[in-house]
Every structure is written in structure tokens, then in C-alpha cells.
């Protein structure tokens, strides 16, 4: 009976047998309620930040979800010597950023992040490799090439740097001469795969630098220890020899008839050559009637 007189607790329902609401219980309840409230708010805030279109005029929405890396020189200064640690931090940030998807188009900070990571850790091979592979596809081919150049300076013994840079030149710039040059550099490095120099030959061929391509295939054919590469480069050599043979025939044809032949078959019918050679690469030959250039026939 005495409990009725003490106002130190109250009951929520007043029903018989209900638990009295002591101060401690109230505190405990309040802690959970407010913790839950902050949790709900946090979840909603995150989804608002990521998926709601910007409402503020003049403020770039992406700023909220994009990483904002420091400039490399500032990052170096504030790392106080722990440059590799900071590089790792930005590396993890980069992975989260790229893996998280971008709801608003382009990964604008991607090149900047690769730059800061490799400036902080100039010998981080995987960072260069990853950058050279993903940057061009995200619309940063020039930045990727700059990254490759930096990698070549920082890691002069690595064949990967010129190799991947060459791929960027090929795939995103269609600049076969530059690609071939990069592959030639890569081929001089220790541990470079045997096929590297073969690729240099292919690129020179693509860029119509056939004599150069021929020389490279010849070197590859004579020096490589890789059976596959020797076989392929042998076929390329044969193919190029056939091309040169046809070019000579086209020149003779023009001397005789004052015009270029319409097809390789023309050379046979006019008795310039006995038969059209069959390329070991499985492609036919075509002749440009305007310039007389011999090229691979489009399949």
C-alpha cells in the first residue's frame, strides 16, 4: 500500500500487474528509441543523398557523393611521411567509388583519384594497370595515356606500363603507330611476354608501315622461344611477302596498261602472275583501283 504514496514511479496503463515505469527503465527505453530514430534518419539521409535529384540551384549535386581528393602535393604534405598509407586510403576510396556506381553519369573524379594514388605511391603497379584498363572506357583516354607515361617513368623496368599504354592508343585512339612504339618499348623489358613484339609488328602493319612490320616479324620469328608466336609471326611474314609480291605485280600492270587492276584476279588473266597467292592468315587480297594499294580483303 505504501507504494501508492511514493511518486518515484508511474504505470503506463494503471492496470493491475503492469510493470511500473521506473526512471532506469525509462532511460533504457529512451536510449533505444533515440538510437533507432537516428538509425532511421541515417538510412533515409543516405538514400536521399544518393538518389534524389538536386534541388539546390547552382550547387553541383555530384559534389555530395563524389570523393574529393586533395591535390597530390597537398596530400603529400599532410601525409607527414605516411604516403603509402594515404595512397592506400585513396585506393580504397577509388574502389568504393567505382564499385558504387554513379547515378549521375560520369565518374568525374576517377582520373583525379588514380593520379593522387600514383603520385603518393609511384611504384604501385596495380594502380597503374587498373587505371590504364578502366580510365579510357570511362571517357579518360588522354588521362590514361598520361598515367601510362608516369608509370613508365616511375617503373622503368615494367613491361606492363608501355604494354597497357599501347592498348589505349590502339583501342581508344586508333593510333597504331604510337601503339606499335609502346609495344616495341614493352618488348625490350625483362619478363615481357614473347607476343609483345609480335603485337608491335601487327600495329605497324595496321598503320601501313609494312616494311617496319616485316622487320619486326622477322626478328620475332628468328628470336622467339615461344612456339605459338613463332608460328604466327611466320604466317605474318609470308602474308607480307605476298603483299609485297602483289604490289610489284600491280606496278608492272600499271606500266603495261596505264591503269591499276580491279582485282588480283586481273593480274592472273593479264599473265603478270601465274596465280593469286593464298595468305596463310586466311584472308584474301584487294586492290584499290584509285591508288593501286594492296590490302587485306574485307571479310
Amino acid at each position, binding site marked *: 500500500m505504501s507504494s501508492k504514496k511514493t511518486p518515484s514511479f508511474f504505470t503506463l496503463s494503471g492496470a493491475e500487474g503492469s510493470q511500473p515505469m521506473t526512471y532506469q527503465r525509462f532511460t533504457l527505453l529512451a536510449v533505444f528509441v533515440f538510437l533507432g530514430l537516428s538509425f532511421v534518419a541515417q538510412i533515409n539521409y543516405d538514400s536521399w543523398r544518393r538518389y534524389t535529384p538536386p534541388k539546390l540551384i547552382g550547387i553541383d549535386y555530384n559534389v555530395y557523393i563524389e570523393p574529393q581528393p586533395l591535390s597530390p602535393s597537398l596530400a603529400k604534405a599532410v601525409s607527414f611521411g*605516411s604516403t*603509402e*598509407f594515404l595512397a592506400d586510403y585513396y585506393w580504397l576510396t577509388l574502389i568504393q567509388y567505382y564499385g558504387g556506381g554513379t547515378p549521375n553519369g560520369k565518374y568525374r573524379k576517377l582520373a583525379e583519384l588514380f593520379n593522387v594514388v600514383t603520385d603518393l605511391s609511384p611504384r604501385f603497379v596495380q594502380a597503374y594497370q587498373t587505371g590504364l584498363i578502366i580510365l579510357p572506357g570511362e571517357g579518360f583516354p588522354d588521362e590514361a595515356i598520361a598515367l601510362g607515361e608516369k608509370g613508365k617513368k616511375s617503373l622503368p623496368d615494367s613491361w606492363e606500363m608501355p604494354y597497357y599504354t599501347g592498348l589505349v592508343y590502339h583501342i581508344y585512339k586508333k593510333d597504331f603507330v604510337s601503339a606499335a612504339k609502346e609495344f616495341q618499348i614493352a618488348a625490350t623489358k625483362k619478363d615481357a611476354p614473347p607476343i609483345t613484339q609480335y603485337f608491335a609488328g601487327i600495329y605497324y602493319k595496321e598503320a601501313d608501315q609494312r616494311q617496319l612490320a616485316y622487320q619486326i616479324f622477322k626478328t620475332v620469328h628468328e628470336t622467339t622461344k615461344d612456339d605459338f608466336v613463332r608460328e604466327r609471326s611466320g604466317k605474318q611474314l609470308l602474308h607480307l611477302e605476298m603483299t609485297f609480291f602483289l604490289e610489284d605485280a600491280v606496278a608492272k600492270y600499271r606500266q603495261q596498261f596505264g591503269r591499276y587492276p580491279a582485282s588480283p584476279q586481273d593480274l592472273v588473266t593479264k599473265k603478270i602472275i601465274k596465280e593469286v597467292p593464298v595468305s596463310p592468315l586466311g584472308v584474301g587480297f584487294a586492290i584499290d583501283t584509285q591508288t593501286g594499294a594492296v590490302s587485306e580483303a574485307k571479310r
Partner: protein
Amino acid sequence: MKYKVLWAITLNTFRETLRDKLLYSLVGFAVLVIAASLLAGSVSLGQDARVIQDFSLTAMLVFLLIITYFIGTQLVFKEVERKTIYLVLSKPVSRETFYLGKFFGLCLTILVAGLIMAAMFLIVLYAKTHSVPVAAYFAVGAIILEAWLLTAVSLLFSSFTSPLSSAIYTFGVTLIGHGSATVWLLSQKASPVMRGILEGVYYLFPNLEKFNLRNDVVFNLSPDGTQVGLILLYFVGYTAFLLILGVAVFRKDEF
């Protein structure tokens, strides 16, 4: 100076710091952070070894320095505040012995704490990569040397200011010491007068970047004999300078 007395004070200081709950929480937290580097490594696109090494060694340095700041700056101050220093100094114990005993005692604590953290680091690294680069041992050693040098700095400051201010000053010295390359770069671009001042700062403040072998661990680049020799020489020279200066100040202190 009696070495027996020095050893007694060293051992007592070590015991005193071991009773400090702060030490346990710091060592515990450092071990936790080192273990957590496993998690960070798992989201690093196959760069586990790299992330574990960088994160753990940085965590080791940071936590050892926090121990230096907060325990090192309190040692002498506590004795003065509790007036226990009278009891000691009234015995045949010189002030030099007292001061040096405090220094060596804390060095012992830092060594033990550092070895616990290093053991955790090496276990985590070995469990993940099944190899431990030799450079890691050098980096751990250099981190402990750096913490010892900063212990001498914090003792020097605490001999004439309050613990909080000496912790802040020691932190400042740490930043300047690790920013020494930046200081040098600035000095080369500055006007002649400013250049003189900045070069003075460069040579006067401890050049802590010498003890930074952490960045080479990832590439397993061990320091060569000359480098190790010069690091040790620098450590001995600079620490002796700080201790002599500290003892000189401490001798003039009045309690």
C-alpha cells in the same frame, strides 16, 4: 651516477606505467586496428598485403606516439604534483638519475607495447600472405626508435610546462619532424633571410622522416648498412642532446 639506482627508477617507472589504464586501452585499440586492416585489405582488389602493411605500421606509429604524448608528459608532473618527488630526491638519488630513470622506464614501456603491436601485425600479415618481408622488421624497429626519441622530447617539455601543453608541443615537433622534406623545399624557394630561418628549423628540429622505413615495406626494400648506421647515429646523437638539455632544465626546476 649509480646504475643500480638508475635501474631501480627505470623499473619503477615501467611498473607505474603498466598500472596506467590508458596504456592498456591504447595497446588494445592498436591491436584492434591492426586486426581490422584485414577487413580493409579484403576490399582492396587483391592488395591485401599492401593494405595490411601500410595500415598496421601507421597504426603502430600513431598509437605509440599517443602513449608517448599522454604518458610521457605526465611522468614527472605526477611526481611533482603528488609531492612524491621529495621522497625520492631526499634519498641519495641525483636529479640526473631520476630524469634518466624516467626516460628509460618509459622507453621500456614503449618497447613492450611496440612488441605486442608488432607481434599482432606479423601474425596478421603471416596469416594472410604466408610470408613476412625483412623490411617489416626494420620498419618496426625504426618506429620504436622514433617513439623513443619523441619520449625524450616530451620529457624535455614536461620538465618546464604542464602535461597538456607539453603534449601539444611534442605533437607539434612530430608534425614538423615529419614535414621536414616540405620545410626543406620551402627553404629552397624562400628569400635569403627566410631561407636561413627555415634551414635552421630543418636542422634544429628532429628529422623524423629518417625513421620512416614504412613506405619501403610494401616493396620489400630493406635499408642498407650505411642507412641503418646513420639512422642509429642520428638517434643516439639527437636523443643524447635532448636528454642533456632536459637534465639541465630539470636541475634548475624548483618544486
